[in-house]
């Protein structure tokens, strides 16, 4: 049963979201401020953070950066619809995904499961693939670079496995948004850009001139060609 940390300043909404998530079967620890949230992270085992960007004491983006810097836990941010700049800033601060308020309990639950969902192991017949320094083990769900294991979040792993399944093929951002993130077309495509950026910092030698995950300008991204 996933342990969720909910950081939300408005008491009614905090209670409502806690109620909704518990109804969906999550265990929820609610914090009313960024400060309280960071304290809770130190003391309580947490699988995922749901973070409202508009917090009174600390800027929500700053809380997100601090979480990202110290814990490998995925972060879903709560934003208001239409605040596009908030989404971009949140993604820049390291959020894995976002949910637009108002959100139904079931929808938030689906997002949480999508972010936490690991890749289903492929049939064991698939051999380990080697791309120069990068080794992709589809059955073991592990990525190693120069023999050292690269720690990826479930989403990053899913993104890399999806791209490398068809090297050289250009995946449109909208397509990745729907297949990897499980979003509908009304979601912000910059989610993909920020996910790619985070993946690059982990597997590329120089993220500015990426070799493994290349940009097809105006269309999307592809794995290779190397």
């Amino acid at each position: 049963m996933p342990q969720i940390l909910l950081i939300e300043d408005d008491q009614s909404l905090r209670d409502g979201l806690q109620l909704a998530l518990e109804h969906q079967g999550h265990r929820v620890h609610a914090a009313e401020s960024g400060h309280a949230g960071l304290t809770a992270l130190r003391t309580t085992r947490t699988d995922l953070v749901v973070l409202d960007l508009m917090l009174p004491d600390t800027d929500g983006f700053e809380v997100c950066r601090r979480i990202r810097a110290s814990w490998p836990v995925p972060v879903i941010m709560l934003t208001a619809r239409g605040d596009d700049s908030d989404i971009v800033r949140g993604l820049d601060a390291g959020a894995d995904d976002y949910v637009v308020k108002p959100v139904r309990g079931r929808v938030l639950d689906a997002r949480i499961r999508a972010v936490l969902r690991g890749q289903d192991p492929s049939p064991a017949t698939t051999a380990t693939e080697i791309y120069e320094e990068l080794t992709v083990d589809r059955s073991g769900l592990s990525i190693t670079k120069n023999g050292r294991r690269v720690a990826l979040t479930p989403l990053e792993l899913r993104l890399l496995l999806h791209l490398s399944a068809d090297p050289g093929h250009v995946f449109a951002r909208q397509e990745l948004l729907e297949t990897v993130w499980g979003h509908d077309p009304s979601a912000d495509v910059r989610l993909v850009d920020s996910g790619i950026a985070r993946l690059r910092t982990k597997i590329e030698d120089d993220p500015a001139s990426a070799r493994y995950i290349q940009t097809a300008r105006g269309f999307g991204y592809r794995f290779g060609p190397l």
Partner: protein
Amino acid sequence: MKRPSLVKRLSFGLRGRLIAGYLLVAAISVVATAGFTYYQAHISILRTGQDTLLNSLRDATTTFAGDLPYPPTRAQLTSFAGKLASGSGFRIITVSYGAQSVTSAQGGPAIPEPLRRDVTANRELTFQRVTQDGTPWLTAGTPITFADSRQPSGIEVYGATPLRSLSDAKAAVWVASQYGAIPALVLAVPPALLAARGVLRPVRRLQHGARRMADGDLTSRIKATGNDELADLTKAFNESTAALETTVGELRRMEASARRFAADVSHELRTPVATMVAVSDVLDDSADTLQPDISRAARLVTTEADRLARLVDDLMEISRFDAGANTLIAYDIDVAEAVRACLRARGWQDKVSTDLPEPPVTARLDPRRLDVVIANLVGNALRHGAPPVTVRVTASEGDEGCVRINVTDHGGGLSPETAAHLFDRFYKADQARSRSEGSGLGLAIAWENTRLHGGTLTAANGPHGGAVFTAEFPRTPTAGDGT
């Protein structure tokens, strides 16, 4: 064919008209002065020259007549005429006595008969001007009377002389007038230009001010100089602009505060609505296990909470459009795929048929906003039209090309009244139905989203009944940034 009026053909700018008027006045003055001068000179020269000639004829006749015997012989008359011709200034002298007549020289005009009659009847010096071959001549005649009795002697002296010298003098005056007039006209040009400039400068300032005002700059004021009519006009212009600025400013403040109020209200509603929506599923899932009336109440609350959430969302979105806060995040997308994804995400694949182009049509659009447009148009067709609902995508090629998305239903179509207000906020085509399933803002939002791309959204009736909504997007929008 109608000819343009003379006034129109001769119309110049204000400057041209001012200068022309100035020069016309100068020309009239110069011509009048020259003409009057010439006329006076003409009369004066004529009278003086004529009087001199007539006096000398009279004097010469008096002087030489004393030496003439009476009755004279023909030879004596000839001698007398010769003396007069040399002493009177007249070129040709004719002396008659009864039937005899001697002439000092040939040529010249004949003595006019009226003159002859006047001389015989009036017994005094008489003159008449005649013209021969274009040359003016002075003819004059005088009877010779006896010194003591003052009775006519029957001898009459006639003189004729050309007035060429007088004509020459008049011609000189005419030439002098002309030479005086031309420099006067030339000298009139600079003051004319200066006067035109003096009038035109404030006019031009007014023109610039009016243009700035037309461009929406209501803060523009014009410097008024002097105390003339143009300065008054400038002041009146400034006062009108100031009054307009105040009124427009007031209206803008009222509109801005109304919009801010709408934005603030929806913002304040967001968090409570979010709480209600968050717990909706808890209520929904438990509704079946509750008593029937509590269950109905729970379902009403959750349904209305969803609707309230949609309304608040749409209000916020409209407020952002009003504030100009919405921007495009556009990049090249496959429009047909966007249509399919939109229908798939809402589970409309089975209710809506599509007519999508092969090969795929790409356009530089914001996929999220395109999704909103398609969803609102299809949702509207499903709610208010009748099946089958069809989405058709067509495209024209080239840089100027555009992508057209038609959403067609087979309902009753649109009345002219409905078509005119369809994209108004909260417009309800069916007044009897007080609330629709949507927020009442869907089509207004679709319209704003299309316009944000530089496109158009229109509605009409199809050839076989039913409404046709057409969203047309340029393939490369005028605004937005792509990646």
